[in-house]
């Protein structure tokens, strides 16, 4: 009985540790860093929203990359196997068509 109690207590501690907050550094391409503390089971979309607000941009116009892979809205640090002090890289959305004025200038 006492052994069982000990076991369940151990599991709880493990669960707590599993969802323990980790520190994540978000780095822009220009090297600006913003630090976040986030629970391992919290969706990273929360972090993304907070970062976008901080830098004053639309969250849809920012790409969050973890080890070169784009972070999905419902990813969590746990689902991506993130560790304490890991880094998320941020890039700005790129859109390309071409300028009508330029095209016009090229017309023969």
């Amino acid at each position: 009985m006492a052994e069982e109690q000990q076991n369940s207590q151990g599991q709880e501690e493990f669960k707590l540790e599993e969802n323990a907050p980790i520190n994540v550094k978000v780095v822009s391409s220009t090297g600006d860093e913003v630090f976040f503390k986030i629970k391992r089971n919290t969706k990273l979309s929360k972090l993304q929203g907070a970062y976008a607000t901080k830098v004053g941009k639309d969250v849809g116009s920012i790409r969050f990359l973890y080890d070169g892979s784009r972070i999905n809205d419902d990813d969590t640090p746990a689902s991506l196997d993130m560790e304490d002090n890991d880094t998320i890289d941020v890039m700005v959305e790129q859109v390309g068509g071409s300028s009508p004025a330029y095209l016009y200038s090229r017309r023969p």
Partner: protein
Amino acid sequence: MYKSMHQIPSSSRLGKMPDRDPMRLALQSGLEYLDRLDRRVHKEIQETRSCFLKLLDNCQSDVTMGDSGGHDSTVDPQAALGDFNAILDNVISASFAALRDRFCVLQPARYSTSFGVAGWLSEGTSTPLGQPPQGLLPGSTSSFANYGPVAQPFLPQPQHSTYLEAFSVIYDPRDTQLLPEGTYPVDQDEVQVLADLMEVNVEKATLADLLESDIDIDGIDFDLEGPTESVCDARAVMQVPKDLSIDNFCVPSKERLIIAPGVVATRVRPRCDGFPRQVFNPKDIECLSSPIAPLNDVCINGCATLLYSQLKIPTVDCAILSTYDLPRIRSNAPDEVIWRNTSWTRYWEKNMWVLPIHRPSDVGHWVICIIYFRTKELHLFDSLADQNPWESDGKDIMKLVGRFLTVARQRHSGVQIDLEGWQTRALNVNPCQSNTYDCGLWVLAAMIAVLRGRHVTGLLEEQMSDFRHYLCSLVLSLPART
């Protein structure tokens, strides 16, 4: 000689060189007439082609109905054949009759047959006649006739270099719709397209074979001064040097890749072929499903991974870099940032890097650079053929090469760095894009050529709509996020 002719409009040339020889004047007028006729016949052939396509559709529906035991009474095969003959008679005989009349006036006895036309035209190759602004030099040798559409993708209609060509081989991008059944494995999987589709388009295959016969991709000894001059069509040669091979990738037509309408959910491509997981949100997919939306970074990077898995041939050893890589170099990102985001490509082991580039400015623009380590060449492709920005881009690209290799050498011994003696080469002289939204597609088309072991894309602007649809279908074939 032909290069300079290309640059001088016919009118000014004629003005400077008045020709009093009546024979020459007659020939000249004959050639101009042929050009006009060529355009007219081409238009008629296009119309005829669409009639044939309709007839073919009817035939096909007939066959389909037949399988289920019915017969489409609205399509009478005999009547269809009658239409066919009528169209043929109408178009071809009328054009030839006009041609014959014209030549009979010019040269009563000798040039009254189609053979005579060919012979007559071949004389034109050695005669410095003026050429109409839109037409190709009529005397071009027929073996280079297929350069027409490749050489001038900016023109709305494909051009033919000889009159005879207009009757013997007509290139039309819509040919892809006439491919034999089963060429695309649409029956097994509507969005799976095999890599070796090249054989289906006879004209394009001929062109590529023609070029490839002169090519040694591995041991290139490029003419770095510029494209080779030749006695064949000057414009074509100016655009596509002989040592560059043109890709003949066939884009499946929209009809063959059916996309079910409905709400689009996020698509996720798991880690595959060395690429990290790719995520396409509805907003990104919308860029591809809209006929006129500019592509974003997710479309370029994501589709690049899909095309790599779909089309890369085994002999091609390349790293597909990301559209974020050059911005990182430009903003002097630290080594660890570069390494973290690029090491998965194992770029230091590859002899070729494919680098899609975003040019910010007011309205962004996509271009692409292929970095060949064996030949120390940067191949530059811009669908608008704007050469000016490459000067600064080229410096950044070489900086990227240096930084990437330095970063790799810190972690892997034996990485060689040689930044001396590199050359740049523009893959196109004339723009191939006339709209404000397809540059991203052109970048992906250029990438396909490289993945298939070629240098230059052979796609035309009128195929971009099908290409967009093909890419969209590739993305939608991915599993939706669960």
